[in-house]
């Protein structure tokens, strides 16, 4: 059997069959069961990895925790009853969901941004998986692109600001602390009105 040249990066999730693989020079995102659609994202083209924590995992964990408590009480109430085993199984299932939620440290959305698209990897739906995947993917991207330094980023911001001022046809103002305009004599401080007072 020929060895695959791809390394598994993320698997299927509850509601998606999307899978991602790490290739030599690109990230491969595969979707579909009967018709496989592949998307290749070169490491050189990846601009950013974004992770957006969501509340869904916390809500499910909380409900599972409440369910565990409730079903444990019901189970103990039926200790001498034949339905004890059924309640025990239900309590164990909810406890497992609760424990899984704690283990995964909550849910998140993981995305990879390029200049033309943002691809969301649905298999990385937890914070734990996202953190692990970030480390793994960042290594490959930095091997292809190098590491972005804070100085380079600040220089890019500065260049952008200068370009914006140049586009307006004005020189960029010198940096310094912002100074409020002086209070004009004879004008009382405003205390009412939609903008803090009537001028």
């Amino acid at each position, binding site marked *: 059997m020929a060895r695959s040249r791809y390394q598994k990066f993320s698997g299927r999730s509850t509601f998606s069959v999307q899978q991602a693989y790490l290739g030599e020079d690109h990230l491969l995102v595969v979707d579909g069961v009967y018709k*496989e659609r*592949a998307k290749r994202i070169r490491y050189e*083209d*990846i601009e*950013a990895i974004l*992770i*957006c924590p969501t509340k869904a995992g916390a809500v499910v964990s909380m409900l599972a925790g409440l369910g565990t408590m409730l079903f444990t009480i019901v189970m103990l109430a039926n200790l001498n009853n034949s339905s004890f085993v059924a309640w025990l199984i239900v309590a164990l299932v909810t406890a497992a969901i609760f424990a899984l939620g704690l283990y995964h440290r909550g849910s998140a959305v993981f995305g990879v941004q390029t200049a033309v698209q943002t691809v969301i990897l649905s298999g990385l739906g937890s914070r734990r998986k996202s953190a692990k995947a*970030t480390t793994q993917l960042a290594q490959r991207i930095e091997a292809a692109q190098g590491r972005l330094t*804070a100085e380079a980023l600040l220089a890019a*911001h500065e260049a952008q600001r200068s370009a914006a001022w140049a586009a307006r046809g004005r020189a960029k103002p010198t940096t310094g602390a912002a100074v409020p305009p002086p209070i004009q004599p004879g004008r009382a401080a405003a205390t009412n009105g939609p903008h803090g007072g009537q001028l």
Partner: protein
Amino acid sequence: MARPERLSLRALRNVRHMPLPSMPRVHNYGAMHVGEGHDVLLFPAAIRAATAPQVETIIEEGQSSCFFHPKLPATQVCDISGRLICDLCQTEWNGRIVSFEALQSAVSKDDAGAQANTRIRWDNIALGLAVLPLLLWFITIATAPVALFIAIWQGRKGPCSVVQRSGWRYLLAGVLALVQIGLWAFLFLFGFSV
């Protein structure tokens, strides 16, 4: 909606944009811009556009631009690379719209099949035809021969996935189909004669 800044990031759960942070790695960033905090890790490609020579833009607000010509609007998606391309960059090859760069890459590597971005998963189809009809067992009289045919016809060509190199699905589909055909044969030979 305000036109997004050139150095910007797209939110993951809505269509809004946020400016690039001042540090390459930040946590819980962008809530005031897009409504939700994001953990962001930036790479040099994020500022590549800003350091590249600026050209006069002619695309309208909200339009996507060509990957190779940032000032031209994108009109197609390359079927090989998945990149957005303009009219200048596209050509037709084997019935597909592709960019010249992707075409050159595919031809030079001589593995155009491996570069194709869409494939029919005959192994999953065969396995599906062998397993799913068991829920309505009487239709397996029609589906089992089809599953067996696909398993033999496509199985000889090898795995059809980009990433899965094993042909166990064909094997399993073929065995299940053979069992179903055998059971039907048994039923016809002995079941109806009783």
